[in-house]
């Protein structure tokens, strides 16, 4: 019961904070500090969102964006983790792919857009490529880092129990690096999300109309209610992804490793 009360109070604090933000926003618009063309009233944004949900544009755009994101991010993880294992275990890979990963991770992935357009044209592949480039390198680096931080005693212990190198890699090194890999996945997600939005705003693709394009469309029409509405949708999706994709992993890590608080 006590736990329930604590949770209730926390939720209430959170709701009250955002209600206050919206009220402040409303008050600023009412005072006429800025023109309502530049800063529409919260109610206008709400009306836009309700309308966009009703006519289906918002949901279909969100679906297009999520599809691109999940596929690209998935490819980033599926490629990134094995590459990270290789760079951590073999000097050849560490001196080649490892350095490349470090370099490309510092490159904002929107910088890939011009090249990508020329290579792939205005296609879904272009979008996917940008998302993969955004998430892959941080996955490589996180996995590499995780494996390097595994205490050597773990693989010694596994060897005495009859584990061969491949078995040790999959069932000792990989799970032992999980704390690093999960934080790399979070970072990769954030990078993928940013790069996809940048690409969608930058490139109009006829194969699918995503949230970024909806946002850019709002700018072109000077419809700030649309722009702000889409921004809120993007933020909410980011928050939900964090809760749905990563919280279970983090809870598992906290419970098993005994670190921090869930």
């Amino acid at each position, binding site marked *: 019961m006590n736990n329930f009360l604590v949770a209730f109070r926390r939720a209430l604090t959170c709701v009250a904070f955002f209600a206050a933000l919206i009220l402040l926003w409303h008050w600023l618009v009412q005072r006429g500090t800025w023109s309502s063309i530049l800063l529409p009233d919260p109610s206008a944004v709400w009306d836009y969102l309700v309308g966009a949900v009703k006519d289906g544009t918002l949901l279909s755009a969100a679906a297009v964006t999520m599809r691109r994101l999940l596929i690209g991010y998935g490819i980033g993880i599926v490629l990134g983790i094995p590459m990270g294992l290789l760079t951590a275990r073999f000097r050849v890979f560490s001196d080649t792919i490892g350095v490349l990963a470090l370099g490309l991770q510092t490159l904002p992935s929107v910088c890939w857009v011009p090249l990508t357009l020329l290579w792939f044209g205005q296609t879904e592949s272009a979008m996917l490529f940008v998302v993969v480039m955004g998430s892959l390198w941080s996955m490589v680096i996180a996995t590499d880092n995780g494996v390097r931080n595994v205490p050597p005693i773990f693989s010694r212990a596994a060897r*005495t129990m009859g584990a061969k190198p491949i078995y040790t890699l999959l069932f000792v090194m990989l799970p032992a690096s999980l704390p690093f890999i999960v934080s790399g996945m979070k970072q990769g997600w954030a990078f993928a999300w940013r790069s996809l939005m940048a690409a969608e705003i930058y490139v109009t693709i006829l194969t699918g109309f995503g949230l970024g394009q909806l946002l850019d469309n709002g700018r072109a029409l000077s419809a700030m209610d649309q722009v702000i509405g889409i921004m809120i949708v993007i933020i909410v999706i980011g928050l939900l992804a964090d809760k749905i994709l990563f919280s279970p992993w983090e809870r598992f890590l906290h419970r098993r490793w005994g670190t921090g608080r869930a």
Partner: protein
Amino acid sequence: MTLVEELQPITPSKLVVDHVSKEFRTGRGVVKALDDVSLNIAEAEFVCLVGASGCGKSTLLNIIAGLEQPDSGQILADGKPISEPGRDRMVMFQEHALFPWLDVTGNVMFGLKLKPNLNNAERRDVARFYIKLVGLERFASSNIHELSGGMKQRVALARALAPNPRVLLMDEPFAALDALTREQLYGDIQTIWQARKKTIVFVTHNVREAACLGNRVVLFSPHPGRIREEFKIELDRPRDINSVELAEYSTEITRALKGYGTGEEVAE
């Protein structure tokens, strides 16, 4: 193999250390960790290797485990030379080396997973048997970080025993524990040794611990690592670490160790 057979005590190994030498190259030159060391260990014998740091006792243990290779000489287990780690020789380290992503049962099952001829239900039963043997049945599904230091070493012991090895190699497994917990474990390891009939090689720098546990205490001296002397401990089991007879043995052994001139790291 049936579960009942799997849980039967297995025939312990006879170990022959045959003129083993091993050098390590460090920043300050070559360290001769083991210099022509020979030692016979009988089936089901409990042998303690004692000496100051750098005397090669842990190196010898690692070579028996198959984790390291000797420069020359060989070690035979039941007449067969050892070249790599094997489930017939399980190791317990000073750090518990338990895997934090698995619970207690998962850790004990790790070595069993690599053992063919058992299905998962049988593995679980085997794990349960050994968890009970070390007195942790109430903690079978606990996470590692929830256990005390002594309990962690008990789990490590259960994990080492679970694949039913012929030899148990212990590298200062109790060194990081408090005195009270250690005393409990001295009792438990003696009981388990008698029940499970293992050949045990136990490395320590604690003379009293060695006298309490071993049938035989083998003294090493460092630089180069050599065997200097052996003591047979003729006391009934279970032995009490605080008994007067045991204190006499440990005084005698400590005196011998100090005679090698490098006794500064030897705790009585």
